[in-house]
């Protein structure tokens, strides 16, 4: 099409091209989000309705007191995340955040392994005094009580 398009049609063509691209973007986004968004689980939810093995999800709760164990390589730790109803064992290889400790809240990003152990790629802990991982704010009253008990 090397001829200039007719006057009335050009604007229409441009609008159509833009619309098609934007709709394509929206559809692409919707499709990609369905497969790539990572969902947040509490331990009880993970126990009742486990995500597929290998799907990226996040797991949030309290780090159980006395559960952090370091493996022989010095850089892998194992611990248990609990919400008072269920316990999920977690394995993490890396440098833990400064405020990651037992009996306080944490969110682990990673995948569930076929052995039931959650393999975390990343840990989010309290960032400063005021920061609580967003999902933890919405814990139910029972979970909050549990949290207080565990912390004592």
């Amino acid at each position, binding site marked *: *099409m*090397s*001829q*200039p*398009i007719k*006057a009335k049609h*050009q*604007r229409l063509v*441009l609008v159509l*091209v*833009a619309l098609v*691209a*934007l709709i*394509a*973007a*929206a559809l*692409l*986004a*919707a499709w*990609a*989000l369905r497969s*790539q*968004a*990572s*969902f*947040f689980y509490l331990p009880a939810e993970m126990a009742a309705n486990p995500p597929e093995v290998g799907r*990226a999800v*996040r797991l949030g709760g309290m780090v159980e007191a006395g559960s952090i164990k*370091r493996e022989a*390589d*010095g*850089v892998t730790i194992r611990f248990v995340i609990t919400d008072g109803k269920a316990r999920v064992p977690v394995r993490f*290889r*890396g*440098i*833990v955040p*400064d*405020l990651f400790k037992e009996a306080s809240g944490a969110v682990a*990003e990673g995948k569930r392994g076929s052995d039931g152990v959650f393999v975390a790629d990343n840990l989010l802990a309290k*960032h*400063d*005094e005021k920061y609580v*991982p*967003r*999902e933890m704010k*919405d814990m139910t009253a029972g979970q909050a009580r549990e949290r207080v008990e565990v912390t004592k």
Partner: protein
Amino acid sequence: MIATLGLAALWLAAALAALQLVGGALALRAPGNPLAAVVRPVAMVQGMLVALSMICLVIVFCQTDLSVELVAKNSHSAKPLLYKFAGSWGNHEGSMLLWVTIMAMAGGVVALVERRLPEPTILATLAAQSFVSLGFYAFLLFASNPFSRANPVPAEGQGLNPLLQDPGLAFHPPTLYIGYVGLSVAFSFAVGALLTRQVSPVFARAMRPWVLGAWIFLTLGITFGSYWAYYELGWGGWWFWDPVENASLMPWLAATALLHSVSVLAARNALRAWTVMLGVVAFSMSMVGTFLVRSGILTSVHAFAVDPTRGQFILALLAINIGAALTIFALRAATVTEGERFAINSREAALVFNNVMLTGTLGIVLIGTLYPLLAETLGAQVSVGPPYFNPATAIFVLPMLVVMAVGPLLRWRRDSLGRIGRMLLVPLVLTAAAVVVLARQGINLLPLLGLALAAGLAVAALMPLLGRRLRTVKLPLWGMVLAHFGIAVALAGMAGDSAFTTEKLVAARVGEKVEIGPWSLKFEKVEPIAGPNWTALQGTLKASYAGAAPIKLEPQSRAFWSPPQQTNESALATRWNGQLYAVLGEQAEDGRWQLRLWWKPFVTLIWLGGMLVALGGLLALLGRVASDIRRLVAVDKIAYRRMRQGR
């Protein structure tokens, strides 16, 4: 005393903004209204007053005047002066005051210098600018007063978040804000042009320096912010697709599209309605960004001045401003007549493609950023990360980059691909060769495509200079070439980082040796050291690149006491071909220390590319402004001569 002066100046500035709005509106309704003469001076004085208010806040912070609540909450007498100074905008109220300051000063400059456009258009533009400012004044004065008093006056301040105690704080937020708010001028110009039906090449030329300026600052702000997060957060990554990062990327994408469509409008009088629409969208994205960052509605690692209750106020402002602008657009879009036509093989068409792809990318980022909010209202908690953003944006960005190689070589209006086909042979061959070589090394698809494209693009970007005498090439062309070349450089850095980075996580005893890539490191010691408001454990590593003389690396694990918090200070060794990045972790029971090391070949190209892009923008801006000034001088001379001749 100074705090009171600051507050008074702020109130006065707000009153002047109201006067500016009313005056502009009345003058538009009834031409010849004497209020028309008031609008420009008012805009200038308003800018000066709010600047005075900001200066007062900075002084209060530098003096650590604890009777001001904001200082008491965010500062500390033992903090280094640089952070007292920069801390004045490292919090919610201060950052909003900075926002309004830049906005009002930009309005003042428009009032002072812009003489090309018809006077009604300027009045409408300044009225629109004051309409937006007024909302933010109301927000400051009623919901987040930076000068409110502490009662009782505390003995000591609470300090500044240690992650912010970095020289970066002095530059990064103001740079980004100048970019965000510079787009408000583009927004006001767009609204002004719509209201007075003056969407024309003159309007595009008046708006272009503002878009360019805002875009340069956004580019610098993003580049700098990325590097800051890279070395401060200690995760070895330079982009996390975090909501706060996306909040700065979205206005940049819109501004990039706007920048290109403004050029089409200025040069060819085409893409009129589209340019106006982009002007509205770009500033809307700035406001969406501010809302996301300030409200804390999305979890982010970079958000520091967060207050959810105030998010609603910004959301309301956002709705009012965007709603009003879109209403005006809907009412007036039909009166914007169609621009000049062009063929599908033309520079215009390439720029349209660029615009559509940028807008598509913007859509992908916007949807991905807001999806967690949407999902939450449906009862699911979701986070969206690189597995979504990387491939989804690549689908739009990669084709755009291909067209970016071709577009600048095409002529306006109509051209044939045959004419430039031979020129493109070199970049094409280069890209193909890179694909073959890299594919043999088993590199993943996206980094592979990125590296291959970067190779071709780097050559193609320079081609508009072919066959020209370099001394006669105008500054805007140099700017474009440099910016496009910068994109290729940054792309090479991004793709190179994900293709070649090696990471090592070890537990090492003092005295042990660690190898990573071509580096061999000796772990010498760990010792406690003390800073002005922190203590730290500092590790010492002697790093040697392929047998060369060792470089000392000193990663720290810092403990601040006000507020009490730990941070990891990474250590970097920079060579021309990459960076070695070291983080010191904690000590295990058996005495070994955790060390996390990355060798990142060519990672520095990312930020070098960003700087080149910004520098290209600066050259283009200088070129445009210089020719504007020349034109003004010429017009003045003609007028003067006519006056002398007694006409």
